[in-house]
């Protein structure tokens, strides 16, 4: 397994505003890589640069061994993209949108019908295939977008907030699909607002803040980096405070120092705790 996505010194400015200040990342072939960050952190701009949609102000990107500067068309052939906003042609039907996507990605015509049947069945799109996009609800539009992005069996799948707007059942269905695709060898690059989604699905996560990567590693490595155990308690002013500790024992020792009437609990540190700390939210960092 080698590096399949490589970004070096990636920067993007819009009219003097630095949306992405400097990003260096390497994604291994076959992994599920998550991009987390608060609103405006530069996630979508980064993914748009990685997927050729936006030209970086500076920096180099290599996708599946192809430089985006020199071999953009070849790089595009390796990727599938499900964008944050619905980007379907509303003048034609679901079936025609999916087929058009396959045609644009030069799928052999013999394979198109079988693949369409397979995916529409998996995503329960069957009854909607001959509807116009405008006749669909947001969730069905999202599912159609996802089917389009994976029709051509890309080596790398970029998913920009793919579960936004989906109900719980559909979200779990998509998670299953992501796992299934990943098992079959597809590298997944995922941005999400749902931290539990990243924690559950991703092999590694990069946390972005103000246009730069502030933390990178597996969910476990990131949790351990701030302390694997968290004590949650109320301070004298009644505010909720959390402190991290490397192990259960040191957490318990700290709890013993708190007053008897203090409400407190000891739990495992979550990726959300890491996210809040590294993105600079009001948070008390403890003994770790």
């Amino acid at each position, binding site marked *: 397994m080698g590096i399949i996505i490589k970004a070096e010194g990636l920067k993007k400015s819009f009219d003097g505003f630095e949306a992405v200040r400097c990003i260096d990342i390497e994604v291994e072939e076959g992994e599920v890589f998550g991009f987390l960050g608060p609103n405006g952190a530069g996630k979508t701009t980064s993914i748009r640069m990685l*997927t*050729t*949609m*936006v*030209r970086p102000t500076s920096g180099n990107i290599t996708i599946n061994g192809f430089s985006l500067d020199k071999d953009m*068309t*070849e790089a*595009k*052939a390796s*990727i599938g*993209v499900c*964008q944050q*906003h*619905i*980007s*379907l*042609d*509303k*003048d*034609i039907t679901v079936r*025609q*949108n999916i*087929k*058009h*996507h396959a*045609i*644009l*990605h*030069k799928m052999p015509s013999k394979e198109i019908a079988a693949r369409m049947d397979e995916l529409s069945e998996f995503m329960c799109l069957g009854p909607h295939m001959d509807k116009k996009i405008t006749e669909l609800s947001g969730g069905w539009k999202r599912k159609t977008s996802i089917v*389009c992005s994976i029709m051509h069996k890309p080596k790398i799948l970029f998913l920009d907030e793919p579960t936004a707007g989906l109900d719980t059942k559909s979200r779990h269905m998509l998670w299953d699909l992501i796992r299934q695709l990943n098992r079959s060898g597809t590298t997944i690059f995922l941005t999400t607002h749902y931290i539990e989604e990243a924690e559950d699905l991703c092999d590694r996560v990069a946390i972005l803040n103000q246009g730069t990567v502030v933390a990178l590693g597996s969910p476990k490595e990131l949790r351990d980096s701030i302390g694997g155990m968290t004590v949650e308690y109320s301070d004298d002013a009644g505010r909720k405070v959390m402190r991290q500790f490397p192990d259960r024992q040191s957490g318990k020792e700290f709890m013993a120092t708190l007053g008897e009437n203090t409400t407190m609990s000891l739990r495992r540190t979550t990726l959300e705790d890491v996210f809040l700390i590294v993105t600079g939210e009001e948070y008390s960092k403890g003994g770790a």
Partner: protein
Amino acid sequence: MHDIRLPRVLDEAYRVAWGDLCYFRENVATILLSCLVGPLLYLIAFGYGIGSGMEKGVDDYIRFIIPGIISMATLSATFSFISSKILIQKLFYASFDELMLCPIRPSSVVLGKSLVGVLRGMCSCAIILMIGILISPGIKVTATLFLLMFVSSLTFSLLGILAGLIAKKHNSLTVFSSLVIVPMTFFCGTIFEISNVPAPLGYAIYTLPLTHPTESIRAVMLDLPMPWLSVLILCAYCVLFFILDYHLIKRRSF
């Protein structure tokens, strides 16, 4: 533009056009009807209305304006349709983004997007031509005429792509249409002889792209000497619009 290899570009252009062709096929009657109304109204209003008061008589004038109306149709059937479609796909559907994500060369995107405009233009011209043959049987129809209609439809489809890519909102397209396209339909010799207008205005008219298909199509249909300079200028406009579209798409400057 080293990546332009014709068979591959044409194959990819068809792939790009596939979605638009589906829409065209399903809405062919509405689409053709909408692009025929304007030219046919001009034919009736100018041909029979104004033509009946002319010295040479209505038949001669109708014979004169049929090529102008056909030339006008290559503009009216293509430009607005393509520019609006590109703008909508770019701003509202965002499906133009999807196209940009596919392994398709910019030259193929340009040709593919113009294809449905060319089809619309050619269908409109063919219908007007049939009507023209019925009301003025003397006009000549040759393969060169179809070639000119094709190049002209392609040129104005490419101009439509350019306008659709540059426009940031629908209002910009409306303004461009009002200031450039509508005057062009009247001024470019479609309904009058350019030699009849004052010389400075005549020179200005010759800088506009619609003048040249009008002159060339009229020469073929009325069996006049072919204005090769106009044919050349028409082809030059076609190449110029293609290059501008190509660079906008390649650089994603839209």
